[in-house]
């Protein structure tokens, strides 16, 4: 894939990728921006190469997911080290801008999602938000189809229960 074609594909998928990056960063918009930028750099520098084994979107989402995990680990390390010169580390919670931009229903949904495990949250996001199949979600999350299906069923049941309990 030529660099121009790569950029076109990235531009086409940008809104969906941004949504996925927010999900990977637990609602933290600035962390999602960082993860997205780092992912784009990886792809355009050739440090992450699309080999055509999966669809471009599935592969892109896996790159974003791995990059967000790397940044999360680095942020955790920064919180451990007493080095203020390294800058403020995101704490893995939705930032104020994200919370304010949300409607009530979305805020309730995000609060309910936050109580689920990371895997369940990821699989539900990929299936409901990104409208991927469970098989594609398994590819992105790097788990087997059976595991993804289990996360999907358990996460969905827990989410429905949580949203039913929430006062409207």
């Amino acid at each position, binding site marked *: 894939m030529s660099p121009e074609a790569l950029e076109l594909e990235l531009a086409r998928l940008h809104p969906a990728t941004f949504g996925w990056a927010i999900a990977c960063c637990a609602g933290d918009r600035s962390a999602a921006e960082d993860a*997205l930028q780092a992912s784009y750099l990886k792809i355009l520098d050739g440090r992450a190469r699309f080999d055509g084994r999966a669809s471009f979107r599935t592969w892109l989402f896996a790159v974003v997911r791995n990059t967000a995990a790397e940044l999360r680990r680095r942020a955790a390390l920064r919180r451990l080290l007493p080095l203020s010169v390294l800058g403020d580390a995101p704490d893995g919670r939705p930032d104020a801008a994200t919370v304010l*931009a949300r409607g009530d229903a979305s805020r309730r949904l995000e609060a309910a999602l936050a109580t689920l495990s990371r895997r369940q949250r990821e699989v539900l996001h990929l299936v409901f938000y990104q409208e991927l199949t469970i098989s594609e979600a398994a590819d992105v999350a790097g788990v087997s189809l059976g595991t993804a299906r289990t996360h999907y069923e358990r996460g969905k049941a827990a989410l429905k229960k949580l949203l039913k309990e929430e006062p409207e």
Partner: protein
Amino acid sequence: MIERTDSDLGDRFRALRREDAAAARPFDTTLASARARRAARPRHRTGWLAAAAVAVAGIAVALLLTRPHRHRMTVDLASVRWNGPTDFLLVLPGDALLRAVPDLGRMNLSTLLDRRTP
């Protein structure tokens, strides 16, 4: 894969997607920020590497300067005589006679006494 009973969940996620899409920065802006970051990164990394190298060199010099001097024990091999546990087997009766230079003019009575059987 989404069942009909999951339509409520689907609607909620779609609303979330619309809000995210409205708040997303344009692709060009994101890419420009990413490229600016790439341009700034090497200098940042070089600075950290230089600081780390200086710190390591400082520690090495400090270790060398504060290291206690060890007196090396020298062994003069010419002065060493090792006695093996079976050396006594090599001592022959009257070996002093063999080592001594024969003196024809005088008789050494002590060696004669030693050689007498009791």
